């Protein structure tokens, strides 16, 4: 191993291989660019959905919604995830990345694809939403861009696996790979499966849009497409949970409560998430009841179990670490005394709470076969996935960005005061947006709809006044969230351009502007990454009682909300 191709971060102790470092930077920067584009169009969508503003024309609205969905759900998130894969392999295992030149080819493909698809939206003939359901056609370059992007991402995934192989062969670590790398591996495997699904459906759809294939069956399209569309969100879940464990380690020096449980939960994701995408098809014709129940039962609930396990073990590991430091008073001193003004921690913790309590619970409820009848395609659905993706994944990525700016990019953060409040602004705005969307959806307001007052329709129908008020309130929340998103872009881009350059010996944590745990990652043996010293948590009784209490509150909320929805279902017209 050529010593000079690595740089050690003086305060975090992390090692960066120069070629992996540049790849991480490129992917992270492109991620933020697409977050900015997608975010601006998200704001326009919201300002149109607010009944009192109703900003865009119908054409522009559906175009903006297509750009928002695709640029945020695919391009922002997957660019960031590929950066995470380079970090979790090369940096955490302290090894050179496999074939960095090929990594650049992957990056160029992803860039070409994302630009192509985004441009196809602006041409105006591809406003087919993120789902692009056939037989509604988009221009061929729309599908072509998505395919190029997917191939590029696939290259990144295989290089991640290649890097793991090199680390194993060169024995850069002892024992098993770290839990965070294991979580990233889960994300990588799901990504590969997902992209294969995407190829199976998007390549024929491209040929169809070019006129070489006469017809694509809409049900076949939907079934395979959701193998892509839903599973791609599971890449996010795996990646974000891996980052939660990483942040718990970085900020608190936390270690997993038990490796077996946490790794087992990641394994459940791989085994059971693919089929769980069946819950998008619960009110589709042509699929049998037994198929629906089967695929949303064992498959989905074992994946739900996995998330419930992480939901306990991540905060549990933080509690154990905090209690070791002496925060042992009562159930919650460990949590009260956590560094709430450090956005790395606050962002991650808010993401975890909103993801679990709102995203998780609503996801299971709407994934229940019959209850789906009252939720399918209402604005409840985007309410749900703004909790999982916009808060869960996006806020997690924001939180780790505040760590990466000084550590990876070696820049001092600009506007540290704004950075302190940014996670609260974004999470608070999103929370308001989400709750009112869920409410309006429960009252029947459709998603992807330009005008719920039906002013152009030949017939008349009016939604309940409450529903319309709720749409307006959701818009207020959305504006706050957009301010939070803008603050993130400002701090991230501003720090890269204007932030004081940190010299190689500068200590990160003094310049960072926030209290952080002592250097988290101190290993003085540069050739080989040693195991962490043995200290068992397993035998200590009630090591994390506060977390357990929180988990019980969560379970109670879950049970109550589920049966409220079942009650609502029972008030519908009878049907069999």
């Amino acid at each position, binding site marked *: 191993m050529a010593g000079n191709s690595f740089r050690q971060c003086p305060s975090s102790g992390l090692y960066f291989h120069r070629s992996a470092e540049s790849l991480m930077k490129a992917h992270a920067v492109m991620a933020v660019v697409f977050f900015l584009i997608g975010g601006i169009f998200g704001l326009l969508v919201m300002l149109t959905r607010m009944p009192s503003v109703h900003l865009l024309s119908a054409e522009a609205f559906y175009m903006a919604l297509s750009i928002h969905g695709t640029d945020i759900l695919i391009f922002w998130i997957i660019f960031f995830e590929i950066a995470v894969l380079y970090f979790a392999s090369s940096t955490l295992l302290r090894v050179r990345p496999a074939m960095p030149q090929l990594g650049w080819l992957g990056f160029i493909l992803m860039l070409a694809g994302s630009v192509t698809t985004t441009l196809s939206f602006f041409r105006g003939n591809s406003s087919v*939403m993120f789902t692009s359901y056939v037989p509604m056609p988009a221009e061929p370059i729309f599908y072509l861009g998505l395919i190029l992007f997917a191939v590029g991402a696939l290259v990144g995934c295989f290089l991640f696996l290649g890097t793991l192989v090199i680390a194993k062969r060169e024995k850069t670590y002892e024992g098993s790979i770290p839990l965070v790398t294991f979580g990233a591996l889960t994300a990588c495997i799901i990504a590969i499966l997902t992209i294969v699904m995407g190829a199976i459906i998007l390549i024929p759809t491209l040929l169809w849009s070019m006129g070489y294939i006469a017809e694509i069956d809409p049900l076949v399209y939907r079934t395979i497409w959701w193998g892509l569309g839903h599973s791609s969100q599971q890449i996010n879940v795996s990646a974000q949970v891996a980052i939660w464990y990483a942040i718990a380690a970085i900020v608190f020096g936390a270690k997993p409560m038990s490796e077996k449980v946490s790794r087992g939960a990641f394994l459940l994701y791989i085994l059971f998430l693919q089929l769980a995408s069946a819950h998008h098809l619960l009110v589709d014709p042509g699929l049998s*009841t037994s198929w629906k129940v089967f695929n949303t039962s064992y498959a989905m609930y074992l994946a*739900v179990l996995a998330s419930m396990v992480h939901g306990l073990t991540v905060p549990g590991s933080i509690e154990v670490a905090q209690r070791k430091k002496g925060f042992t008073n009562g159930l919650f001193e460990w949590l009260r005394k956590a560094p709430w003004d450090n956005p790395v921690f606050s962002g991650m913790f808010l993401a975890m709470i909103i993801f679990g309590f709102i995203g998780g619970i609503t996801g299971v409820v709407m994934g229940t076969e019959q209850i789906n*009848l009252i939720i399918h*395609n209402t604005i409840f659905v985007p309410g749900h996935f703004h909790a999982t993706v916009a808060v869960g994944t996006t806020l997690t990525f924001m939180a780790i960005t505040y760590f990466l700016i000084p550590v990876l990019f070696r820049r001092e953060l600009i506007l540290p005061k704004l950075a302190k409040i940014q996670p609260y602004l974004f999470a608070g705005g999103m929370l308001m947006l989400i709750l009112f969307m869920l409410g309006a959806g*429960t009252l029947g307001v*459709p998603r992807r709809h330009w005008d719920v007052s039906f002013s152009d329709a030949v017939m008349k129908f009016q939604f309940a006044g409450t529903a319309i008020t709720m749409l307006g309130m959701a818009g207020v929340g959305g504006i706050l969230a957009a301010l939070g998103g803008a603050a993130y872009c400002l701090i991230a881009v501003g720090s890269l351009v204007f932030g004081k350059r940190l010299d190689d010996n500068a200590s990160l944590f003094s310049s960072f502007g926030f209290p952080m745990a002592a250097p988290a990652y101190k290993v003085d043996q540069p050739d080989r990454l040693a195991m962490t010293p043995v200290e068992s948590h397993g035998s200590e009784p009630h090591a994390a009682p506060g977390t357990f209490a929180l988990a019980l509150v969560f379970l109670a909320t879950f049970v109550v909300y589920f049966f409220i929805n079942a009650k609502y279902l029972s008030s*519908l017209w009878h*049907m*069999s």
Partner: protein
Amino acid sequence: MSITPPSQKIWWNQPIDKIEAAWIGLALVWCLVLFLWMPYWHVFGKQNLSSESYKTTPAAFEKKTNEMISKYTVRKEVNGQMPVVAPPPGSNVYLAASKWAWNPILELKKGQSYRLHISSLDWQHGFSLQPVNMNLQILPGYETVITLTPTQTGEFGVVCNEFCGIGHHAMLGKIYVKD
């Protein structure tokens, strides 16, 4: 730590923390309840989607819809353009979705069952009965059949809740339910 290799080489034999074990048990029980709830509702619930559906073509479905319309039209609404159809209870009722209308308007009787057939003549649409809030996906080439029993009287809107092109927001239908 989570960012370094596990502290013990044989980590899979480490004992599980008590609260972790308790939580896994609780969560698993709840997941099983959720799973069993679905078959339970199939037996005891009154809102279940039947799996009955057929492959069809837009032309074939339109033909059956028009046959029903010509047989059971009771009046016309919307400037005399849109037929209002009152089929007898128990009969086959057809509702055709197309850009950007639901055809025809239906008039049903409360407490009576109908075999409701729905399909699309072009792109994908969403059948959303409001304010009841009952939502179905409608695909071209597939004919959904549900046995439907209205439990309320009044005038109900049929909103399209699947994006189906630029006129999507004006796609509104109607169902009357009378005593």
